[in-house]
């Protein structure tokens, strides 16, 4: 397969948007194209992550209308759906087509507009990414799934639940600290000095997950221009290369051997490391799917950055901060930056690229700029997992 590079990136302000989804996606795409210095006529295909557009705006087939909104002509435009990992599925598919030699340049990204649905209906539609036949009638929600995982984490590692909750809270404190410094984040200038007690004492959504253990509902879009690596330097002096990609699938909760060790995530991360020829020790920074605080801990262990049961202490100890063993979610993550579910995977890649260019907001920028970065995106209750390993130079 040919090497694939990211030559342009775009990202709307996350939070509440007045624009419609297609406008948000066009904003992110045009920004990415301007960043790359490419013209509309150079784009050969479009891959768009969008999880719930039918419920949000009564729109299915949004990718075709996005291509039309940008006057891209009759090029193939495909919606990719993997719940909260939709954009990562879109990026992976787009990169596959470029890697295969079918296209030289594509747009890949995602969009979501969830806030207008309100908490009750949004929770209903998000829960559609649970297993409808068995988890549907139970009334399981996503905070509920991760609450079950948090309780199991406490049992598996013989750590009192209150202790687990404190360590989980340190994820929220860290990610809000970084989100508050990020002008594109939903919680920019907000919650930057959150305390562990604030997280623990906020109201239960699904016991033991509190409101401040959760990421918010969000609107937003993010898009990338992907191009074959041999062409990339025609457009930019700083292409970022996709060195490894992984994707894994899970199933109903009841078929999982252990909620704290989802095989889909382990398998996807391994796939990405294998393709990149790298291991966790080589990676300088991560953007991981912290939809809930416990999710960040589980992600770090599944990806091999910490041993089983050790991400909790490491996080509370500052090992996932700048200067620690591996800085995680310097963008604010889903918790601080917001989580427009169809866009999140592209947003994660955007912030890794920003870090590698030395363009992350002051206070969040890692110095020296990272050589290798990695993203982790999760859809559903471990149903769809994607990983990307990015580098400033080719393998």
């Amino acid at each position, binding site marked *: 397969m040919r090497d694939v590079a990211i030559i342009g990136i775009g990202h709307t302000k996350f939070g509440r948007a007045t624009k419609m989804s297609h406008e948000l996606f066009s904003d992110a795409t045009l920004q990415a194209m301007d960043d790359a210095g490419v013209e509309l006529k150079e784009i050969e295909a479009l891959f768009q992550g969008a999880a719930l557009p039918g419920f949000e705006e009564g729109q299915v087939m949004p990718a075709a209308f996005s291509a039309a909104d940008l006057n891209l002509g009759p090029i193939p435009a495909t919606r990719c759906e993997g719940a909260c990992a939709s954009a990562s599925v879109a990026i992976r598919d787009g990169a596959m087509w470029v890697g295969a030699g079918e296209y030289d340049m594509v747009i890949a990204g995602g969009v979501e507009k969830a806030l207008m649905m309100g908490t009750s209906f949004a*929770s209903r539609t998000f829960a559609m990414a649970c297993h*409808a036949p068995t988890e549907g009638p139970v009334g399981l929600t996503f905070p509920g799934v991760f609450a079950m995982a948090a309780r199991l984490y406490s049992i598996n590692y013989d750590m009192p639940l209150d202790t687990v909750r404190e360590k989980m809270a340190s994820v929220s404190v860290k990610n809000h600290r970084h989100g508050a410094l990020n002008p594109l984040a939903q919680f920019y200038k907000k919650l930057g000095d959150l305390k562990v007690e604030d997280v623990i004492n906020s109201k239960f*959504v699904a016991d*033991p997950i509190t409101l401040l253990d959760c990421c918010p509902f969000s609107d937003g879009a993010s898009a990338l221009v992907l191009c074959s690596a041999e062409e990339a330097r025609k457009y930019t002096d700083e292409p970022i290369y996709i060195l490894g990609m992984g994707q894994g699938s899970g199933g109903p909760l009841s078929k999982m051997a252990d909620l704290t060790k989802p095989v889909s995530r382990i398998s996807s991360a391994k796939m990405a490391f294998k393709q990149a020829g790298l291991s966790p020790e080589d990676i300088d920074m991560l953007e991981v799917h912290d939809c809930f605080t416990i999710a960040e801990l589980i992600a770090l262990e599944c990806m091999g950055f910490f041993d089983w049961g050790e991400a909790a202490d490491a996080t509370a100890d500052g090992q996932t901060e700048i200067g620690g063993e591996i800085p995680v979610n310097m963008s604010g993550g889903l918790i601080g930056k917001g989580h427009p579910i169809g866009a999140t995977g592209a947003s994660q890649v955007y912030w890794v690229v920003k870090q590698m260019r030395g363009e992350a907001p002051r206070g969040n920028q890692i110095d020296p700029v990272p050589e290798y970065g990695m993203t982790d995106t999760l859809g559903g209750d471990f149903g769809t997992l994607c990983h990307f390993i990015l580098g400033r130079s080719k393998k």
Partner: protein
Amino acid sequence: MVGKEREEMEKELKGYTVLTHAEYEEGIKEGKLLGLRCASCKKITCHPMPVCQWCSGRSLERTELSGEGELMTFTIIRVPAEGFEDDVPYIPCLVKTKEGPCVVGRLDYDAERASQVLISKQVKLSGAYTHKGDKFSGGTHTCPVFEVIG
């Protein structure tokens, strides 16, 4: 002459499902946890799948589980999805059955008293919960309800 006899094509139509999801739900309503026994590995699949959940075996026959098991984990939902407002607070749970497979259901327990010490307790099937469903659920659906027995 090319083309296939339509009667022959009709005869070839067959389902691959030994136990449908609807039958599984009916079983729960009757107080039975139904599953499938694999002829290859002898293990039990529950909820039903078209192949064995352990070895992907294709030769399955219906069986009834004891309905007993161990509480693996649970949560107490305080902020529900639309349609579940009247149930709050309620307790989704994951139960590992005596026979091996895990099942997701509801735990019949006082939500204000439910705590971490419940985990690992023995539970048994004590009833069924049928949610009224909504425009998106394809009708009503039923899940098992468990109670703590020790």
